[in-house]
């Protein structure tokens, strides 16, 4: 028990310390090397973020709606896809599984450059829709994988039980499947949201500067070594994705959870 406590405290501090450093940096004016704490505090970073011309809030809004939409669509596609692959046998099943994973095995630059050319032809480049589609190619492998495992773990027995009671497909989904895949929904949406929320290269390439998300504003500052503004922006970044995860969890999670184990 004691050992357990020490262990969890260590993990807690390991996670929280970088966070504290970020907060300190975001309020720093000067921080010479060798000093434990900044020698002068200031609001340069936060002032930049609050200035309307810096477009930080606008980009945050774009990021949230983009990643939110990507998450929703990913889930809508992955639930039936996961079920089909987990519960049914069909010709070319292993091929389909491999193809679904392909976008995360092949480097995104290779995928992106090729898709970019086609997107220009179809008029999808430099548009919100184009960025949404390209994000789906990298998020779908993750979410489909998750739902394959979820449906495999859930099995078909409960569904068959429903069938014998003459429940139609919607009733079976609403009252059986929904509860069985809940844990998958929480992890799936958190993962998909974060993969999409932190995309830089593909947003850049397909969005062509027309779709400006938060990472697009953040990266130049990290590159040019402006630690103060970069830290402030990073905090906004982390807090928004944390906020989303909490919301997702609250929306989906069962309030009166009966058991620690979902499939019992």
């Amino acid at each position, binding site marked *: 028990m004691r050992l357990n406590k020490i262990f969890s405290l260590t993990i807690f501090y390991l996670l929280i310390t970088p966070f504290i450093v970020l907060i300190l940096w975001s309020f720093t004016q000067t921080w*010479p090397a060798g000093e434990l704490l900044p020698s002068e505090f200031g609001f340069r970073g936060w002032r930049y973020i609050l200035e309307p011309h810096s477009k930080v809030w606008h980009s945050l809004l774009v990021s949230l709606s983009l990643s939110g939409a990507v998450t929703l669509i990913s889930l809508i596609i992955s639930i039936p896809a996961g079920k089909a692959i987990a519960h049914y046998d069909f010709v070319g099943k292993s091929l389909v599984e491999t193809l679904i994973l392909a976008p995360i095995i092949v480097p995104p630059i290779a995928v992106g450059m090729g898709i*970019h050319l086609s997107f220009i032809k179809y008029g999808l*480049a430099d548009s919100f829709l184009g960025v949404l589609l390209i994000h789906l190619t990298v998020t779908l492998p993750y979410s489909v994988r998750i739902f394959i495992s979820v449906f495999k773990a859930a099995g078909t027995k409960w569904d068959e039980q429903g069938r014998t009671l003459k429940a139609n497909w919607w009733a079976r989904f609403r009252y059986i499947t929904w509860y069985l895949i809940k844990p998958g929904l929480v992890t799936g949406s958190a993962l998909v949201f974060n993969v999409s929320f932190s995309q830089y290269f593909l947003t850049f390439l397909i969005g062509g500067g027309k779709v400006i998300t938060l990472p697009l504003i953040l990266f130049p500052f990290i590159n040019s070594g402006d630690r103060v503004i970069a830290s402030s922006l990073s905090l906004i970044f982390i807090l928004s994705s944390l906020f989303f995860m909490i919301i997702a969890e609250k929306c989906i999670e069962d309030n009166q959870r009966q058991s620690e184990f979902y499939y019992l």
Partner: protein
Amino acid sequence: MFKRYICIILALAVLISGCSTSAKPAEQQDLLTSDWETIVSTAEGTTVNFYMWGGDERINKWVDTYVSSNMKEKYNISVNRVPMDAAEFINKLLGERQVNRENGSIDLLWINGENFKTAREADMLWGPFAEKLPNFNKYVEKEAPDVAFDFGYPVNGYEVPYGKAQFVFTYDSAKVANPPKSAEELLQWVKDNPGKFTYPQAPDFTGSVFIRQVMYEVAAGYESFPEEIDEQRLEGQLEPLWEYLNELKPYLWRKGETYPPDLAVLDQLYADGEILMTMCYHPTRTAGLVEQGLFPKTSQTMVWEKGTIGNTHFLAIPFNASNKAGAMVVADFLESPEAQISKYDPLKWGDLLGIDINKMEKEYQDQVADIPLGEASLPASVLAAHRVPEIPAGYIPWIEEAWYKEVARGVGN
């Protein structure tokens, strides 16, 4: 049933994306022959997408506030700054050129050097538009080598000068009494102060300039680099450069076993007091960093006695810009003495004048003289007297690669 849904979704997708890139009238073709009034009136009420590097808070702010509000007031044009590195928008344009996309999203570019050369060779720029701009005709010395050539590549009116930059060294005057002012002195100084100097590794922009700066003094000046590259001759020519850098290496920060990956890291090492000198291709940046409290207040900049490398950065318009008229009006405003003087103020940006000070009216010249440059900066006249041009852009990747082979060798990334 399901198929029908897919069809509807696809149709919607095409419709939505079709709207966003709807074609504009082709009247832009004759912009090069129309007069300036027509161009200005065509540009009125439009938006100009200005693609530029976005890593400096002050530059961003200058464009977002000063340029934006002036364009709105004077011409009712909205300026939309898009942060994107030059290498990246060049890639984007290459893709668009490949499929000949009309109505691109970029209207105005901040560009120079290799990227300009690439863009011109792939026929990605629109022009020549320079002589259409009244302020270009009035205030720019067209024959000046640093305006007529961009890293040795002829400009031919496909871009207009935006500003100038010059390589300077920054040192902490509280710790370095007599900063080295030549390659030879630098070698001696580094040997006397081991571990207190280093430079970013090529192909970092600044690291690459430092290598060329040393090259001018120990191997060959800019005159000995013709447009055509003769590798055989070049190898022999650069021999003394590699000898020099290898002699320097064991006395560098961390004994030269590793180099800072970019200028940001070098500046951090300097800010943290680990090294005593840093360098920059932007002569008033140091004053700005001191002002922001990032660099010690005793920081000073200097140039070498035989001069340091300088270059010009430019504005260009892509072949498929949707709003070429607007881009020309914005470019013309950026060539104006008002904009150039505002940009020269180190509190705003601190970029050297892209136009010729001698062609400006007296009142403007006085304004330039009145701008406080900050303790750390050198006056424009000192910089101008110590400025030597760049070599043709084609040599640069070649030298960077050779540096890896000859000097870096086992250096881990």
